[in-house]
């Protein structure tokens, strides 16, 4: 039913400012987004970029200053109660009741959504199995590990089978194994028809988990597309470390730059970083030139463009440094 209104989430011209000690801070300066139903949509950006603010507006926790937001076809500003019935939300803090058992948490959640006793019991049992909580469901949540609690919190978010599930930094603080588990579970939910919108500041998470993503910085969407589309806008890099004494790096770089398949070359810590718009033909061309010149090669690697390159190109800083105050001051 939401498909008729053109997507699971539609946002146009969203603006939000907060009053702070240093004056007015523009958290969102006109965000536009469209999420198609049935996708995992990633929202990538550094801390303070506006990801959480956007999510809080979409989940009725916060009112936008201006702009429109529709979730599952429903206007968030006009009909927040209707939106709440159709969405699930897993906040950064999680929000499980620490002093109750996992099962009690699920039952209360179901009942608050208006499910009856039998429906609630049945659904709780289903989710306890799906999210591998069987051994824990009768234990007080305070005793759960971080990964266990996160699984319960995801279960709480989907208890009432929402059309759209919002997750704010779902894997923050999880170890790699729990992270991989959660990714698999989110993909499973997507495959079962749930639209998922999640924020993250992890490049690999945005890259591997999202079907589509938006990159946000300083309250603006700076790039949008599938991870592959975004990365393909930028060249890959062949990184060559020549055997010491077999070639002079400077002249080698000049030589390589003449090749039509090579974009640019720079020297970095005894290695050549050679940009190649097409990695397959480019790598071959570079190797041919080196062989022709009799240059011995110690090490070769190919670095595909990453979402960080996209971020760097669009904002002039690396996502790894952005949002870190010390790095911002240094820059």
């Amino acid at each position, binding site marked *: 039913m939401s498909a008729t209104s053109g997507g699971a989430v539609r946002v146009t011209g969203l603006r939000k400012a*907060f009053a702070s000690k240093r004056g007015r801070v523009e958290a969102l300066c006109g965000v536009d987004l469209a999420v198609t139903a049935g996708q995992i949509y990633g929202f990538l950006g550094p801390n303070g970029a506006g990801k959480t603010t956007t999510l*809080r507006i979409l*989940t*009725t*926790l*916060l*009112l936008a200053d201006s702009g429109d937001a529709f979730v599952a076809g429903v206007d968030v500003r006009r009909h927040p*109660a209707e939106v*709440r*019935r159709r*969405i*699930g*939300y897993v*906040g*950064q*803090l*999680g*929000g*499980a*009741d*620490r*002093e*109750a058992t996992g099962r*009690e948490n699920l039952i*209360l*959640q179901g*009942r*608050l*959504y*208006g499910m009856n006793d039998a429906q609630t019991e049945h659904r709780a049992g289903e989710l306890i199995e799906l999210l591998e909580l069987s051994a824990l469901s009768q234990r*007080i949540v305070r005793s759960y590990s971080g990964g266990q609690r996160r699984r319960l*919190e995801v279960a*709480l978010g989907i208890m009432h089978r929402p059309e759209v599930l919002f997750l704010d930094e779902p894997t923050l603080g999880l170890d790699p194994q729990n992270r991989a588990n959660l990714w698999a579970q989110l993909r499973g939910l997507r495959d079962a028809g749930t639209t998922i919108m999640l924020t993250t500041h992890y490049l690999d998470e945005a890259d591997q988990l999202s079907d589509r993503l938006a990159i946000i910085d300083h309250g603006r969407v700076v790039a949008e597309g599938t991870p592959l589309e975004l990365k393909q806008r930028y060249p890959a890099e062949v990184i060559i470390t020549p055997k010491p004494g077999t070639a002079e790096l400077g002249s080698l770089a000049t030589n390589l730059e003449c090749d039509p398949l090579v974009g640019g070359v720079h020297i970095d810590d005894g290695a050549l970083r050679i940009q190649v718009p097409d990695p397959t033909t480019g790598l071959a061309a570079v190797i041919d030139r080196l062989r022709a010149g009799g240059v011995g090669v110690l090490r070769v690697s190919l670095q595909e463009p990453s979402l960080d390159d996209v971020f760097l190109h669009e904002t002039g800083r690396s996502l790894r440094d952005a949002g870190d105050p010390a790095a911002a001051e240094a820059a």
Partner: protein
Amino acid sequence: MTLLLQTALLSRRRLLETLRQPIWVFMGLSVPLLYLALFAPLLTSLAGGPGFPAGGVLDVFVPGILALMAFGAGMGAGWIVIGELDTGVIERLRVTPASRLALVLGTVVRDVITFAVPAVIVVCVALPFGFHAHWGGVGLLVVLMALLTAACSAGSAALGITLQQIGSLAAVVTGLQLPLTLLSGVLLPLSLGPGWLQGVGHANPMYYAVEAARQLAAGTVATGTVALGFGVTTAAALLAIWWATRGYRRAMA
């Protein structure tokens, strides 16, 4: 209907929480009993003196203890609110269709119960020590004090959701505790004090509840003081519940 169901669900959750921390149940009971055991004997020599009827020290003192218990049972709500802001529980509940009024009332109902159960026990314990219970009056007295608990509970929750910091909440609540309780005459009737002190007391909503409570304990029900006590306390409870609900409804950064 939905409101009732949701309030029942949320107060049940709260009661489970309380029962899982028996130390609170124990302390909630032991403090008023200690007052009875350790403070009431100090008052016996005052019997028959100003403010105290002959042989009826407890008749004056038990309503005061009940008011203190009501205050104590309600004022913890703000701490829970801040704890739940920090763990994201309130945020999660605010994204569900749960009525915001039910979110407030869940805690209020629990606090009223955690007041009422020990209150009845304290009344029963006080009987053999010379408390003259007029049952109709005592029944109404517990109802009045339950309303006071509700006002304190919702007021504390509203303060918690507004201040959002444990430190600020603790400062405000401890700052309020002394003037609110002392100037309502919980320990000693305010009528013992000079005129100006009684005048200041009239600005304290809790004063009216305690005055009404003393009359109810004495078995006088149909008086203006009792009506005023119920009126002021009910108004305070409604105002506090409205304020707390508004806090839950409003967006928090």
